[in-house]
């Protein structure tokens, strides 16, 4: 093989490899997916109450006398209303 043919062949191989790598490169899509995931996480935090929904001024029902069923129900509804997961009722 002539040396010029060798370089000519290598050139085309390099070009093909570059095109292949470019096709596989997902660097243009990953940041977008991460942004979406962060947005979902932030929305969950904002809406769930775990981070932002509960007020520090809350106090529980008075246990100086044993709690009644109504007091317990009211306390539990207070928590459940924060993100209302019916499944834990």
């Amino acid at each position, binding site marked *: 093989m002539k040396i010029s043919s060798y370089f000519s062949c290598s050139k085309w191989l390099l070009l093909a490899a570059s095109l292949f790598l470019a096709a596989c490169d997902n660097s243009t899509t990953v940041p977008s997916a991460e942004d979406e995931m962060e947005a979902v996480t932030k929305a969950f935090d904002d809406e769930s*109450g*775990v981070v932002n929904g*509960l*007020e*520090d*001024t*809350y*106090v*529980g*029902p*008075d*246990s*100086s*006398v*044993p*709690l*009644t*069923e109504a*007091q*317990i*129900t*009211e*306390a*539990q509804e207070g*928590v459940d209303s*924060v*993100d209302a997961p019916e499944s*834990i009722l």
Partner: protein
Amino acid sequence: MKKNIRSLAIASVLLSSSAAVVAAPNNDCKSLPSHSELQTALTAAIQESNGGLDFDMWATVVNRYGAVCAVVKAINKATGNEEADPWPGSRVISAQKANTSNSFSNRQVSWSSASLYGVSQPGGSLFGLQESNPVDPRAAYRGNAKHYGESNDPLNGLKVGGINVFGGGLAIYDAEGNVIGALGVSGDTSCADHNVAWRTRAGLSQHVGAPTTEGFVNLEKINYNVANASKTIGEAKTNGFTHPLCGFSEDTVGKTIGSVVVPAT
């Protein structure tokens, strides 16, 4: 006619006895200690030597549905504190322990949280138990922390959840052998916590005692006999379900108050 009356009488007896077995408790705390009753019992319990660090402590009582009835904190006179200063993280742990013993005790078996330690370790038949009923963070960390341990603790009335497998949790039984809730204490070594729970529960008039009926499996005492622990469930009734020692004199104290399984010699 006589036959009918006799059948009716038998049916009545069966109905009443089955009602005693399956009757669901109300989701309230009327048969469980108030805040002040629990405070008194815990305070008295930690003035005695429990073999650990002699720290201030937390105690929590839950009802049969897992709802918190009261949370208290108490001063151990050995600390010299004017206000109770137990480890902040132990408040939720005390609630976890109460939830644990309530969750796994019934008319057939009574589990202390300590007795779940061995079988929930890697290779044990209940490995992973700790992950089975997670703490609800909305309940555990709700409200103003200044009220933690007071009669209006923000945990009151809430289902905190959580499973804890070291010493400090004990079920509370009524006179009919029903579990009506459970007690959890925390703030010292886990072995001392078990002793404190043992003493505290004894100070609660609502706890009549675990059933002594035939077939009832009582796993309330802590078992430090790790070296001889059996891996089989059948033998575990007598020498399994172990808990490690904590390094102080908790086992010695436990023997004096009856909270420890004494290994056969």
